[in-house]
């Protein structure tokens, strides 16, 4: 029997922790048996959070905007749906998401260039995968990929990193780190796409409703407003 579940990661700003709880509650409304884990800072955790999350992992969580990349290889599940905190579940089909993995090790939804800050890297290279939600198998290859994602992102954001031959604005995007790993390294991970219409599994605010092809969205993905981030607590390592 496989042990499958959903993972949220909230670090740096408490707005992400609050958003993770809201999203996980919406998940439970549609799938009360869902196993959900949260990686976050111990100081933020409240007793009532255990009504939502099966596991709350707080050991050694980096106070880093991309703490998710650190957490991914430590998933307690065989199959994991990683979900960004700024999401809301809107459909019962969320319970069937693990059936979609097939023979793949990881499934992504596609970026929509009209709704993304940057996707095109050159005339022939494009960051096609959205990295705010993905389904993955817990095996050696994917764990290594995830760990390399974190270390690659740390390197990419170091002051001496050179983006050449790619645009300098890729630096802050973990999407670029993943693109590079998938396209420039021997990762051995079988990569696939969510079934069409993939937008229903990660309907990002700004997507055209036609992307749903008449289906209902399962996951709505918004962006936490800057003023919400500004008024929330920034985590300080004690």
């Amino acid at each position, binding site marked *: 029997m496989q042990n499958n579940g959903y993972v949220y990661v909230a670090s740096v700003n408490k707005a992400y922790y609050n958003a993770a709880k*809201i999203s996980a509650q919406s998940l439970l*409304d549609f799938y*009360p048996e869902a196993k959900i884990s949260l990686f976050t800072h111990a100081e933020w955790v409240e007793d009532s959070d255990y009504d939502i999350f099966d596991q709350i992992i707080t050991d050694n969580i980096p106070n880093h905007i991309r703490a998710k990349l650190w957490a991914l290889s430590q998933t307690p599940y065989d199959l994991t749906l990683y979900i960004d905190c700024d999401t809301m*579940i*809107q459909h019962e089909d969320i319970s069937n998401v693990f059936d979609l993995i097939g023979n793949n090790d990881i499934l992504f939804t596609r970026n929509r260039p*009209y709704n993304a800050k940057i996707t095109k890297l050159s005339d022939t290279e494009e960051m096609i995968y959205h990295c705010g939600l993905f389904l993955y198998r817990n095996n050696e290859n994917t764990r290594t990929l995830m760990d390399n994602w974190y270390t690659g992102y740390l390197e990419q954001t170091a002051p001496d990193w050179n983006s050449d031959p790619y645009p300098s604005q890729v630096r802050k995007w973990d999407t670029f780190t993943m693109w590079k790993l998938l396209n420039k390294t021997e990762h051995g991970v079988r990569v696939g796409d969510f079934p069409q219409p993939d937008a229903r599994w990660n309907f990002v605010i*700004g997507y055209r409703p036609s992307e749903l092809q008449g289906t209902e969205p399962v996951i709505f993905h*918004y962006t936490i407003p800057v003023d919400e981030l500004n008024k929330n607590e920034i985590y300080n390592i004690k």
Partner: protein
Amino acid sequence: MSDVEVSKYKNPIWQNKDNRHIVCEILQANGEYALCHVVAGPESEGGVNLDYDNIISEFGIEDLDVRTSEHKKIKEQRLITEKEEAEAKQMRMKQEVLFNMKLEAFENDLIQSSEDKDLKKLIRKSKTPIEVQAYATILIQRELEKNAK
């Protein structure tokens, strides 16, 4: 110093060919180009405009036709892009309003603590603000009635 002769006229296009009306940039005394309208009037009236004659002499009527056609295409494309951007902005705003309404609904204590999963799901699935409002109202009413018993 460059020996290349600088043209007095730049980027001419027809505003109204029948009226021999050209829009172009003309070099000013201060060394900068300014957008100008050059009108010679209908040929049948025999009007004369020196700038018009100079532009036709320098660029030719066919070149102005091509430039005007290209300018029209660019303008049309810009209008399409602007319309798409405006529609995208409006759609995003609608999505934000709807989503914020759902968030606000679930901030309500009665809704949050309710065990009526069916109505909660209907609120989350709502496609319009009116649906959110309606389902939220029904849920609150049910919870109030339940609490009153």
